[in-house]
Structure formats: C-alpha cells, structure tokens
C-alpha cells in the first residue's frame, strides 16, 4: 500500500515550503502528475492512501484537478493501472470543495475517518446498498452478496462490477472487499 502525503507533494511541486494550500488548477495538475509518477513506481494493482492531514485548504479548481481527474483517469476502461484510493485526513474545511467536484462529475470515493471507512459523493441507492453490504460482509463473493441483498447472482455480479469500475471495491481472487476494508470500519 502506498501513502501519499499531499502537503509533501505540494511542497515538491511548487518548490516552496511556504505553501500549504492546494489552490489553483496549475498547482492541482502538477500535484496530480506527481501522484501519477509515484503510482508508476508501484505494482500493477495498488491501494494508495491520499493523505490530506497537513493540507490547510483546497479550493474547487484544485479539487477538480487533483481528486476528480485522478478518479476519472482510473475509472476509464484504458486506465494505466489497477489503482484504488483511500482518502485520509479530510476535514469539513476540505469537504466543501471535494463535495462540489464529486457532485459535478458524478464521482464517489472512500474516506477514512476515526469511526471507520465511508463512501461519499454521488452514488445511487443500489450502489450504496451494495457497498454497505460488502463492507459488512468484510469479504464477499457474488453468491454471498446475492444472498445478503436477496437478488440474483447475475445482479450481484453486475453491482460488484460497477463498484469495482468506480474504484470503490477491490476484487481479491473470487471475492470482493471495499477499498480500505482492512484498515478497519
């Protein structure tokens, strides 16, 4: 598992120790590119913790460049790698901008909070229900999920495929776990 401290990436990117704010599109694009470079050094399938703990604030434009575009590029069919992201240290102050870009782009992500992991952003009721069921099961096959949700196996498989494409659950052998599940929650 990778851990990326966004404030460190920011300082490397803007070459200035004074900046602790993720603001402006050029800064966001540079930070995202640096994250992509770090991911290039990782395995084919990776779980990366994106850590906001030391970031004072993020604005809408930067959130779009760093978070939305990172998620979009890895949701795509031609994604360069099988990468998953867990967001840590996201406070109410960060959430304002993050929420706006997730809504605008129709995206969702997994955040780690003191009380466990949560999925946030734009998610349909069935998607949310499936994600919660997988989280509660801990590690679920499509058969177990179908039984839990009282749906057909094909429907359960489809729901898992959708969440996997959205980088919200990971496939491990013949089972599925929610992103960040082993971190607690």
């Amino acid at each position, binding site marked *: 598992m990778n851990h990326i401290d966004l404030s460190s990436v920011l300082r490397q990117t*803007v070459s*200035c120790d*004074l*900046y602790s*704010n993720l*603001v*402006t*599109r*050029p*800064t966001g694009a540079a930070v995202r590119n640096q994250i992509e470079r770090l991911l290039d050094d990782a395995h084919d399938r990776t779980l990366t913790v994106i850590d906001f703990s030391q970031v*004072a*604030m993020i*604005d*809408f*434009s930067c959130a*779009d460049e760093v978070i*939305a*575009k990172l998620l979009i590029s890895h949701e795509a069919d031609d994604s360069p790698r099988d990468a998953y992201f867990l967001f840590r240290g996201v406070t*109410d*102050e960060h*959430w*304002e*901008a993050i*929420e*706006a*870009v997730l*809504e*605008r*782009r129709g995206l969702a992500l997994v955040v780690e909070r003191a009380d466990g992991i949560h999925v*946030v*952003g*734009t*998610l349909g009721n069935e998607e*949310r229900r499936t994600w919660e069921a997988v989280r509660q099961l801990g590690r679920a096959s499509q058969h177990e999920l179908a039984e839990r949700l009282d749906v057909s196996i094909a429907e359960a498989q489809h729901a898992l495929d959708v969440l996997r494409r959205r980088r919200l659950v990971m496939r491990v052998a013949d089972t599925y776990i929610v992103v960040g599940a082993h971190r607690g929650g």
Partner: protein
Amino acid sequence: MTTVVNVPPSLDDHTFDDVLRQLTTVPSDAKVLLDARHVRWASPFGLTALLTLAQTRTEMPALAVPELEETASYWARAGFFRYAEELYELHGSYPKRAGASDSNVLLEIMSVAKSEDVHDVVGRIQQKAQLMLRELSLDAKATVGFAMTLSEICQNIVEHAGRGGWVMVQTYRWTKRLGRRVVVIAVADAGVGFRQSLETSPGKDRGDRWDDAAALEDAVIRGVSRFRDPGRGQGLAGVRRYLGRWDGKLSVRSGTARIAIVPNWDDDVPLAEHLPPFPGAQVQVTIPERAPSAQPQPVSARTQR
C-alpha cells in the same frame, strides 16, 4: 488637449460608472486627467478599478490625488500608490511610505497575474483569519470558505483575463439598510471580459440574444465556461454556494453589464445593462458580519451523502 474626469467623492462599484460615463466618447489614446482631489472615501472596488482603468489607456493618464490627508493616507496604506506610480502621472502630495498598516485592510492591493500570486493572496488572507473571526463574528468554516472564494475569483484573472489584475480585501461598516460590518473582496482586471472569453468556446451557440449581460448570466448563473471540460465553471458556482450560506453578495461587472446575487440586506438590481463600457471583469464579494441570531445552514442539511 487633456480631458478632465471628475472622480466622485465616494467611489464604489456604482459611482465608478460615473467615471466611465465621462470617458465614453474619449478615445483611448487621448490624454485624460482623473481629478480625485475631492474623493473622501473609496471602496476596494473603487481603488482596484482605478488601477484597471489606467491599463485601458494607451496614453498614460494623470491622476490628481485626494487632497484630504486622511484619504490619501488611507490609499497609501491600501497599497494604491505603489501601483499607481507606474500607471499614472500623479499630481498632488501623498505619503510616499505606507506607514502603519490599517486594521481594516485585510489584504492591501496585490497584483495577480500568475498562479503563484494566488498562493500568496490566499496565504496572506489566512494570516488575517483570526482578525476576521473577531471583527465579523464569523466562524472558522467561514474563513476557509472566504479563502476559497478569494482563490477562485483571483484565478479567473489568471485563467481568462489574458493580462494581470488586482485584488484587495477590506472591512467596513455597511450603513445602508444593513447597519453591520462587512468584509469586501474586490478583484479587477482589464482583460478580455466574460463575453469575449465565452466566445472562444468551440461551437458556442450565441443565439438571438448575445451580449455582455447574456455572457454574465451564462458564466455566473449557469456556470458555463469557455472550456469543454465539464469540471470547469465550478469556481463561481462554489462562490455562489458559499455566499448563499453566509448571506453574502456577489456582483460581477463586465463590458456594459453587471450581474448581482443580491441578499435581502441589499437593494441592488440583479442585472444592470447598457452601462458605460469597461474592458475585463470586476468582481465584488461582500460578506456581512454575522447577526447575533443568524445561523448558517448546517453541514448535515447540505447534500453530503
């Protein structure tokens, strides 16, 4: 021949139009003298717009500075003369050094031309966060949103204007109707403006009605951007959301129109058209002091899912 333009005693986002009206028929290469000798008060909008006005003239204009020592001193503390010396032939006496900082000036005038300038602006306003909390009874969440708002508005210059502009932040008492203190952001540039910027959008359908007012409605109300990327246009949308939560006002002037998101405490018109033309874009954000009983919309009532 020099054209003399009288600057109103109270210079703000509305009275600045009186200045522009006097210039409507004056060619940009004609010599003008802005007579600000009798100015007693100027808002951040007024000061940044004066700098912007000089940028629009091909012949360097002259400016007769305020005669009132208190006013000239304030303009100096706001950082006005630091930039005006390069843009105007200044007539009259004014403090060459800014002197002690003014506690009402949260951010003295700063030039904004590149991304790094926005980092500097946001960093400086964060240093004043405690002052904002104390003066305006705002909470910490409001100051973060304020910095985000400032960042997004300044980025409009970097991304769209095509030339540098200015920003200033100040607190003062809003006597008309409100009777409370406010914090005001003014950001002004003399760049391409909203209409011309949106016209560069590929496949832009201009429709039957396409003018400065329509461009402002597209950008400010509907979040339209010249970029195809659907993630664009979020900045002003986010600013509107923030202002809605804190009962703030947004006013954007570009070309011959001004659009405003007007809260109950103000009586401005939502859309003003056929104003005297002025290049670029001039944005003003006004956040009122929190009323004793006022509560912002709680986070849980928003759309967090």
